[in-house]
């Protein structure tokens, strides 16, 4: 894995490099470099399989982390590209022309995180939700419990315990937390 990140480092200016396992590394890339890096990985380094494309909401830093995970089957290794974009104006260039299947991931990200990928096919179509009007549900500031309590009827009589105190009393009565 080191050889690959070294080679990439000579070609592109990379951010943090985390080597997770012998066959998995995560590399931070600037948003405008992503396309060049991922094309290079696909065409030169043999990372031809797009495993997943997803986002992580780092609300404290006001950023979304997009993770592009690509896989090289012949050498049995993966590399994840981390791209940090601004949370307020979340827009990113799509990679649906490199992998047609990326369009599905981008549609999901648009709906569940509100990250826009201009030009991606059917990006504005509803994917999973129907008639959703609240903020995108996978964002950290969306409170699913509060929403569920306000929107749906709940059957009275359901006791909900705070897991930490309840399990402490039941399972580890003597143990200090």
């Amino acid at each position, binding site marked *: 894995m080191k050889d690959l990140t070294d080679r990439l480092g000579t070609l592109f200016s990379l951010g943090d490099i985390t080597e997770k396992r012998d066959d998995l590394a995560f590399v931070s890339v600037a948003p405008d470099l992503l396309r060049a890096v991922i094309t290079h990985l696909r065409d030169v380094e043999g990372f031809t399989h797009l*495993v997943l494309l*997803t986002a992580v909401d780092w609300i404290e830093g006001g950023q979304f982390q997009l993770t592009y*995970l690509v896989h090289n089957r012949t050498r049995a290794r993966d590399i994840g590209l981390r791209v940090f974009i601004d949370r307020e104006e979340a827009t990113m260039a799509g990679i649906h022309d490199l*992998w047609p299947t990326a369009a*599905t991931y981008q549609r999901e990200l648009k709906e569940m995180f509100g990250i826009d990928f201009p030009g991606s096919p059917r990006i504005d179509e509803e994917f999973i939700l129907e008639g959703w009007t609240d903020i995108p549900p*996978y964002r950290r500031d969306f409170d699913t419990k509060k929403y569920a309590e306000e929107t749906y009827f709940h059957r009275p009589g359901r006791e909900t315990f705070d897991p*930490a105190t309840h399990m402490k009393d039941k399972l580890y009565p003597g143990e200090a937390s």
Partner: protein
Amino acid sequence: MALFELDRSQYPEAKADGSLDIDLASGKYLKLWQGPQHPGITGNMSVELTVCGDEVVEGRTHVGYLHRGFEKLMERRTFIQCFPIVCRICVPEPDFNEYCYAAAVEELAGLEVPERAHWIRTLILEMGRINSYMMYLGGQAGSFGMGVIGQWATYVRDLMLDRFEEMTGARIYHMFILPGGVRDGLPEGFAVRMEETLREVERALKDINDVMYCNAVFKKRTVGVGVITPEMIEPYGVTGPNARAAGVAKDVRKDQPYLVYPELDFEPVTGSVSDIYTRADVRRRDVHVSIDLIRQILQKMPKDGPVMTRLPNVLNWKIPEGETYIRGECSRGEYGYYLVTDGSGYPRRVNVRGPSYTHAMALLEKLIVNANISDVAGLMVSLHTYPPEIER
């Protein structure tokens, strides 16, 4: 007599951006919905077909009927509270979720799993694979009007569920593989009863082979239909039997061996042309591989030893910051969990990569064009999609 030639003069032209110019008011086209309920597919998914005559000119997959927001719910649950809900992501083969989640947590928390737990995990995953294939065989035969295969396959699956029940105490959701190991060892005499079940599976497979795979009607309707070319495999993210049927030996068990697969002796099953028939055939042969693997596991696994490592106090179980991706080969292809932690007691983000995600969306929409309406059901089932893992 001249060969029948399709009259495509009425077919829509492509517009500049590549989409089709479909004018519903012209009366040439009809919108037809296949789904959401569909007896062959395990779960609800619908395909919006635009047909011209009895040929499909455009198909669009609609999912979201089974969305529960798992990835959001898990952000609100502690690491151990996530464990009972992950298996509910995918009904017919729930154990894979348990394994991937447990392995991801173990890697980030730095837990060592006892050797025997690895063997039991592999055993459970292979048993789940047989179950999943049996569901598929019933659905695939049913979509071509062979109801009896479904009866046989479900019967065999029930026998396997009995083995699950005596091992884990539950039929469908086992909640057996948890971070740190597995809940328990094998019950006494399990290997003997397992062998009986495996013989029954083999007997049923022989019957199914005679009635379904050697059936001229089945062959005629499936050979050469819905072909996935080898060039489509990488762009469309095709994995598992769908890719192996095209001759690409893509099998995570061999490519990146996990659990105890390095110590087991098997070869990935491949085919020549990935049409409906070959895909079905690859899956049938894969059941035989799984049967063989279960026999090897029961023979080679250590007979005693711990199956569970000591977990930290799960109330204050904080996992250091990090991210990882765990993959495995489930019956449909590559299943994976992407887990991000931020040093608190809750996962920061969990992303489930189900193989159906790419198969049912981009790939199906591509394959369905120019298919006959009567083949659509068989084509949908032949990709072996489980909608709950698309939308979670």
